[in-house]
């Protein structure tokens, strides 16, 4: 059989597909971060914790109220997004006029608190969350066994990503948001309620994280640290894509998933660092990331 660098092409397809699925998570998470950073200039370090909350709230809904996965997919982002709105109103809104590093410090503190509270309540090992019945099992694609759930992850995240992109880049609302990032005072002087816009945006970014969390619950360990280590990779994705570029973070998310997948085949030990190598190269060649606008 024809082989590519010692790997049968069939296996390679499988790996690429898996990479794409992983990329879906990167894309969803980095999208939320990009929205929050690009529009509020806040480096939302609590993003990982909010993703984790998404998974946990889904678990709680199921175990305490019997709410199933599908409803969770809808309700959890709303609930966690509302939580984000409260956080924004009470805490983050006090920091906009400061260097955005202070936002980082605050959200880092929030992440610690959220993670700590969940850890105290639910321990660290994690909680079980089953794949919804409709999506159990999988398809034999010939070259690999594709669990139905993974297919669904791709579809769901693609849809959400594109919808978000459209909303921010192509609608008036998005223009308000982008303008408000640059000069909130002036946008306010045009008669736009900037604080409310900002609050909703933060809530939306958090809701995206929570949505990713619900998607992740059935396949990744639902534990309080699940977002903590992911966050740094997701930052890398946002930066490679070009800070503030919504489309950039989506494409980069999927793209890096693919590249990481390939690394896992050819040099698995390096798959943790490959993203950073790429980031270094990209930034040295393209100063503002792949899709970023130069100032």
């Amino acid at each position, binding site marked *: 059989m024809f082989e590519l660098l010692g790997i049968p092409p069939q296996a390679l397809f499988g790996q690429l597909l898996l990479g794409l699925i992983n990329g879906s998570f990167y894309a969803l998470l980095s999208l939320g971060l990009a929205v929050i950073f690009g529009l509020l200039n806040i480096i939302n370090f609590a993003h990982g914790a909010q993703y984790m909350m998404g998974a946990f709230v889904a678990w709680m809904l199921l175990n305490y109220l019997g709410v199933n996965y599908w409803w969770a997919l809808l309700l959890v982002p709303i609930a966690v997004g509302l939580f984000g709105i409260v956080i924004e109103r009470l805490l983050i809104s006090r920091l906009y006029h400061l260097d955005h590093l202070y936002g980082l410090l605050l959200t880092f503190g929030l992440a610690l608190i959220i993670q700590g509270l969940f850890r105290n309540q639910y321990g660290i090992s994690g909680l079980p969350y089953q794949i919804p019945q409709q999506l159990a099992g999988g398809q034999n694609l010939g070259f690999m066994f594709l669990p139905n759930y993974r297919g669904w992850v791709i579809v769901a995240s693609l849809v959400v990503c594109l919808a978000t992109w459209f909303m921010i880049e192509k609608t008036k609302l998005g223009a308000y948001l982008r303008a408000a990032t640059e000069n909130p005072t002036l946008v*306010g002087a045009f008669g736009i309620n900037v604080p409310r816009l900002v609050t909703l945006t933060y809530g939306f970014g958090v809701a995206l994280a929570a949505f990713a969390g619900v998607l992740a619950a059935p396949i990744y360990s639902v534990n309080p640290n699940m977002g903590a280590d992911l966050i740094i990779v997701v930052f890398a994705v946002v930066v490679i894509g070009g800070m503030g570029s919504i489309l950039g973070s989506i494409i980069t998310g999927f793209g890096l998933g693919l590249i990481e997948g390939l690394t896992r085949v050819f040099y698995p030990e390096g798959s943790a660092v490959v993203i950073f190598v790429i980031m270094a190269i990209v930034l040295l060649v393209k100063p503002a990331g792949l899709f970023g606008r130069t100032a």
Partner: protein
Amino acid sequence: MAKAALLEKTTPHGAHAPLLAIRDLQAWYGESHVLHGVAFDVSEGEVVTLLGRNGAGKTTTLKAIMGIMTKRSGSVMFDGRETIELPARRIARLGIGFCPEERGIFSSLSVEENLMLPPQVRPGGLSVEQIFELFPNLRERLSSQGTKLSGGEQQMLAIARILRTGARLLLLDEPTEGLAPVIVQQIGRTIMRLKQEGFTIVLVEQNFRFAASVADRHYVVEQGRVIDTIPNEEIERNINKLHAYLGV
């Protein structure tokens, strides 16, 4: 009192109440007290200018009217409504448009998006076509990034975008700064036309000749106060006094 006399003088002789009436307006940047009781009136359909040296407080006055000074007190009546307690966005919704001196073009928005950004607060603004007629440069560069425009083009864009909103009181901070003489003349004509259409305009100007060519009345600002009022028709007579104020 001298102040009362001044107010007497600044109130136009017209019968109806002024569109904008400012009394004892004070404003601070943090600790530093910049406006010390500005007072003047503008009637509907008038063009007035604020003249004064650098740092006199002209820009600050506009910002205080617009509600984007964090700390201010006194009274700003617009169309019979007290606005001193309102946030900037509510003031804008009453129909006041602001064009800042540093232009405030958004770099993450295209020229078109910049132009379309301010929401319409009232019918009766200029149409996009009329705007392009006024500033043909903008039409050609619609899809470029806002801050990639030349300095003067940015100035045009900044004015253009509030003309669209239908605001009936326009606060223009040095709208001719950095513009080619042809464009300055064009803006002068635009201001006259806006005036005819019933817009009310408060203009901050350094270009005294330009100011004289469009305005009904000039208020001289010094150290955060309006210290004199000169109707445009009396400007020739008062030219020496004015030169003294402006230190020419």
